[in-house]
């Protein structure tokens, strides 16, 4: 039973990829945009190297059950994250995945690849901010949250000294997400160009 105006998002990556912050920014942005949101994270025993998940529910109405069960949107930042979560998607759910790091199954659900890790490394000079790029991609690709709310959420959640870099990462993600990418059906396989 899916509530009509609820979106369930799951970020899945490895510890160290900043998945938790991504979930926080998304959830906080939703609230700034006037929505209800709930968020929970889990990680494995190792600070680096085991699967980390950040789950966010977004809704027009107060949320009764705050955990994500099957997601509407899976954002896979690593192969392990993809493997761990690909079966926990609703019918019609969408997978956004990193073209450079994740190999998806051929008969998988609706999916779109983005070369986020490479973009972060090459265009932002920081592999670390791929997580915030993903927030922008996810928001723009779905249209669920407004850009200004996202920018404000980054301001509130990121330490001062990294703020400028993260804001740029967000803009990059919004740009990528708006352009859309090649679905599995066709078109060129390279990273997006708009």
């Amino acid at each position: 039973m899916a509530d009509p105006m609820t979106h369930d998002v799951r970020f899945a990556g490895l510890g160290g990829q900043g998945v938790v912050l991504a979930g926080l920014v998304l959830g906080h942005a939703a609230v700034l945009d006037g929505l209800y949101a709930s968020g929970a994270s889990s990680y494995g025993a190792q600070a680096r190297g085991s699967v980390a998940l950040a789950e966010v529910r977004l809704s027009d109405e107060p949320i009764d059950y705050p955990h994500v069960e099957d997601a509407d949107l899976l954002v896979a930042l690593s192969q392990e994250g993809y493997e761990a979560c690909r079966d926990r998607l609703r019918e019609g759910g969408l997978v956004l995945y990193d073209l450079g790091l994740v190999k998806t199954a051929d008969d998988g659900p609706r999916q779109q690849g983005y070369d986020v890790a490479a973009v972060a490394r090459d265009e932002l000079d920081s592999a670390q901010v791929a997580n915030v790029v993903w927030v922008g991609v996810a928001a723009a690709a779905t249209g669920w949250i407004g850009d200004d709310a996202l920018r404000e959420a980054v301001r509130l959640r990121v330490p001062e000294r990294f703020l400028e870099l993260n804001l740029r990462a967000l803009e990059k993600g919004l740009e990528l997400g708006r352009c859309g990418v090649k679905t599995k059906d066709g078109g060129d396989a390279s990273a997006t160009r708009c």
Partner: protein
Amino acid sequence: MPYSTIPTGVPAGQRYMSGNEAAAEAAIAAGCRFYAGYPITPSSEIMDNLSRLLPAHDGAFIQMEDEIGSISAVAGASWSGAKAMTATSGPGLSLMQECLGYAVFTETPLVVIDVQRAGPSTGQATKVGGGDVMTVKYGSHGDYQVVAFAPWSVAEMFSLTVEAFNAAEKLRVPAFVLAEEATGHLFERVDTPSEVRVYDRDYRPGEPPFDTPELDGVPSMPRFGQGENLLVTGSTHNGLGFRKVEDPEVHDRLVRRLNRKVLARKDELCRYETHFVDDAKLVVVAYGFTARSALRAVKLARAAGSPVGMLRFVTLWPFCREIVEEIAARDVQFLVPEMNLGQVADLVQAASLGRRVEALGQVNGKTIAPASILQAIEGIL
């Protein structure tokens, strides 16, 4: 004097925060101006936040060398006149028991937030548990009552922390927020208020601080430095605080009054919610995070035509058996899902007038999924 409405001193409005963050802000809102604590997963964020918030609100903060030092300092600060608290988890709560008994016996107002994790012992430090229900009530030796609330949301981590302070100050008793890792680390939107209703301890100069003419009374609460020449002691004492360790009547009177003063006020202390119980043949009894799962399961079951309802306990101690008895007057069964092996189920059984009570205990470090409760409902009906 009794309740007053005061500005919270923390930002009001639509906030996105974790349960632990909400609890810390609620403490400030309630007027807490002293925290002593020790780090322990999954409660440490409460302390981290108050280490910053308290100095900003002219309060005092100290990280003590261990949990025993922490609860001791909290008790000392309360007698100096401050609304005082600490936060911990199972292992720390165990260490604090002697001093909690001292706080009960000396009628020292204080608040303890227990963010429960999977136990016993060190257990699974980062995983959720719900096994401390009995610990807050029976963890120390002797016969006594405490107040304990079980929040089910980030919003309740805020509101029930305020209520815990009110109960502690009004009844001169330790009050617990029996939270869980699942709520402590959960982020939710909270619409925080700009004002809260708070109770400040009653000081009636010249009245004995440790007894009342009433058999269920709460004495005046003085503090150090008022010229009262206080005699605070954990030994059995008379109304003025003199040790009376040979007198059977004094001991009996004191022990009974400390119990009665809480039990006589169940009407105002007992908070609970009922959902769809009027036509229910099965009532799911839940509290804390589990109640979020239970409500979802109940709604799903009702959508499929099952006559199921829910009773959610907000107050766990004193245990409000009366509402169970009221529901059990009709022909119903009870299902009690918990993240322990039936601590509240046993209490429900005792109050259920012989109705069938099924305990659904889960102790695997995870929250109970709505599907598990739904499956149990379908199994029964």
